[in-house]
């Protein structure tokens, strides 16, 4: 009973927030709705017992991808009037895509009615579960059988990070020094250092 209520709650929020992603006028709000949608999808994954995917959704999609989206959207200066201008012209293409999606939906429901897919290993038997939870099984494989590959993949990411820093971070010592604010120097400065009292003769200029 509780499971059913939770499922319908999560599913409703996923669909409603997904609708709001495309309906809201403000793209920043769209991204925030998207994050809500991801969170509830993660809830659905927990309900079906795939807690590892749920954590991935939260950490990778909410934590990294959606925040990145948010930054990009906030930095871009989007002109919404021009975006809406082509609506009538592009409407036929949109209708065609909508029809294709509708056909896919009908076929998908039909295939689902015909019976679920059975996942298994090539010889037809289902793979045995080593541990209670997915996370334990995945962890046991990653840190024993695939330890070498897992650690090497980590080094690949490290090299990518070093590369990004080496290629984009260039020190400009001269410019850096100019921009540097030395507050002590500013405070020590006296009026006599900066101003000069001059009384030039009439008709003569002054040497600065």
């Amino acid at each position, binding site marked *: 009973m509780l499971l059913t209520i939770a499922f319908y709650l999560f599913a409703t929020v996923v669909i409603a927030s997904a609708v709001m992603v495309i309906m809201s006028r403000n793209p920043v709000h769209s991204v925030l709705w998207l994050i809500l949608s991801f969170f509830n999808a993660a809830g659905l994954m927990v309900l079906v017992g795939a807690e590892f995917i749920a954590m991935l959704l939260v950490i990778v999609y909410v934590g990294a991808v959606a925040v990145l989206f948010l930054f990009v959207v906030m930095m871009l200066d989007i002109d919404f009037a021009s975006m809406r201008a082509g609506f009538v012209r592009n409407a036929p293409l949109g209708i065609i895509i909508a029809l294709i999606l509708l056909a896919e939906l009908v076929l998908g429901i039909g295939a689902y009615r015909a019976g679920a897919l059975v996942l298994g290993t*090539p010889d037809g038997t289902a793979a045995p579960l080593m541990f209670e939870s997915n996370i334990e099984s995945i962890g046991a494989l990653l840190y024993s059988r*695939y*330890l070498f*590959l897992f650690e090497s993949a980590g*080094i690949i990411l*490290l*090299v990518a990070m*070093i590369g990004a820093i*080496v*290629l984009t971070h260039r020190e400009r010592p001269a410019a850096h020094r100019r921009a540097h604010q030395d507050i002590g120097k500013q405070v020590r400065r006296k009026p006599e250092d900066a101003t000069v009292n001059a009384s030039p003769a009439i008709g003569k200029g002054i040497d600065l």
Partner: protein
Amino acid sequence: MDFGNYLALIAPELLISISGLVLLLITAWVGDSAARPVSILAALVLGVACFMVGPALLEGAAGPDTSAFAGQFRADGFAAFAKMLIYVSGIACLMIAPPFFERLGAMRAEYPVLILFAVLGTGIMVSSGNLITLYIGLELSSLAAYVLASFLPGSGRSAEAGLKYFILGALASGILLYGMSLVYGFTGTTDFTLIRAAMALELSTGALFGLIFVLAGLAFKIAAVPFHMWTPDVYEGAPTPVTTFFASAPKVAAVALTVRVSLDAFGLQADAWRQIVIFAALASIVLGALGAIGQDNLKRLLAYSSINNVGFILIGLAAGTPQGASAVLVYLAIYVVMTIGSFVAILMLRDAEGSYVENIRDIAGLSRAKPVIALILAGMMLSLAGLPPMFGFWGKFVVFQAAVQADLILLAALGIAASVIGAFYYLKVVKVMFFDEPAGVVQGRSETGHWVLLIAMAIIVSPLGYLLTIPLGLLADRAAVSLFLLP
């Protein structure tokens, strides 16, 4: 699972990755002033790694004792031979880099760290016993190489080289992954030994497509025709020490990897890949030779020369015998020496203002200004051409011998005929240096480190190198046999 044993087998990789991380921390704290000490430490680490792979190389380690992590990693004699070449070329690239980058005001302490990680990736490539290991090693070395190619700040050509290498490398990775997914789909495994067993009886069309895509992706990495287009631009644009690296370590690794994949995973379906390899070999020899003729940049010329040499190496692979694999290893060893020697010689050519000379026009009459460098560069060119008194001839000889003994007489004859075309442009460089009016461009003195490397390489390439034929052949034979001990 015996983890202690596994860790002993991956000891060189462990050493390089841990010291890479430590050196990275040093560069992060001390900054670019640590560039020289970090380079020296990195070279020392690679030197120690050489000694670590030494025993496996000398005894020609083979069999199940050399495979770690359920066959994903192989520390056999073949891998040890290739790793030795990779580590030596890594040391050479660390030695020649600091003077070059310091002169351009662009030395960063990250250079030796990236070289270490690239060497680590190439080492994983040659040790791979599984498609996933293959891909991870390839990506590790390629990612470091993309960064190294665009290492010169403010240089448009360096950035172009990096970008070109990155885009074409990503395309090659895509092709390779597509092939790997097909092979996995049609054989049900990513392990080389199991793929071999699954392909033993028949080769389905899907698996054949996978095999072709895998070989095409690897051909990109070894710059074999028709996947060679990126080589001249990248070699020309990248800083010269980095070009030296590209022409040596990743090339050795990619060739060794291609040999292992062809003879191990696809070993029982040799007929399926032999025609591809034969085509790539002949096309590389001819196109490498013809393309080099019009070049006036020495680095571009050497890029075409490397395409040409890959063609000869592939002739050894086409034989598909232990002798062919051994010939490939001997050729690779001699090729690495010739490549490092040529690039070091080019690095020693500077004009009055201290900038580096790369044009063939500018080295006219070099024999009068710099007789020793001119003589050694001429020796390298004659050796690359495969003219008999030099050691380069021996590499070509063993490769053609293996092809003839595998009944590929026509291939060997065509290869020998095409190598005559290649001799033209090597001889042209020699002619420009010795018989043209001096251009008087090259001046200045060179660093001691460069001289040490250059003279060492020159002695190996000179006729004295023939003293090495017996030990080199013996080691290569032992290493090659470790590929053929499978069911």
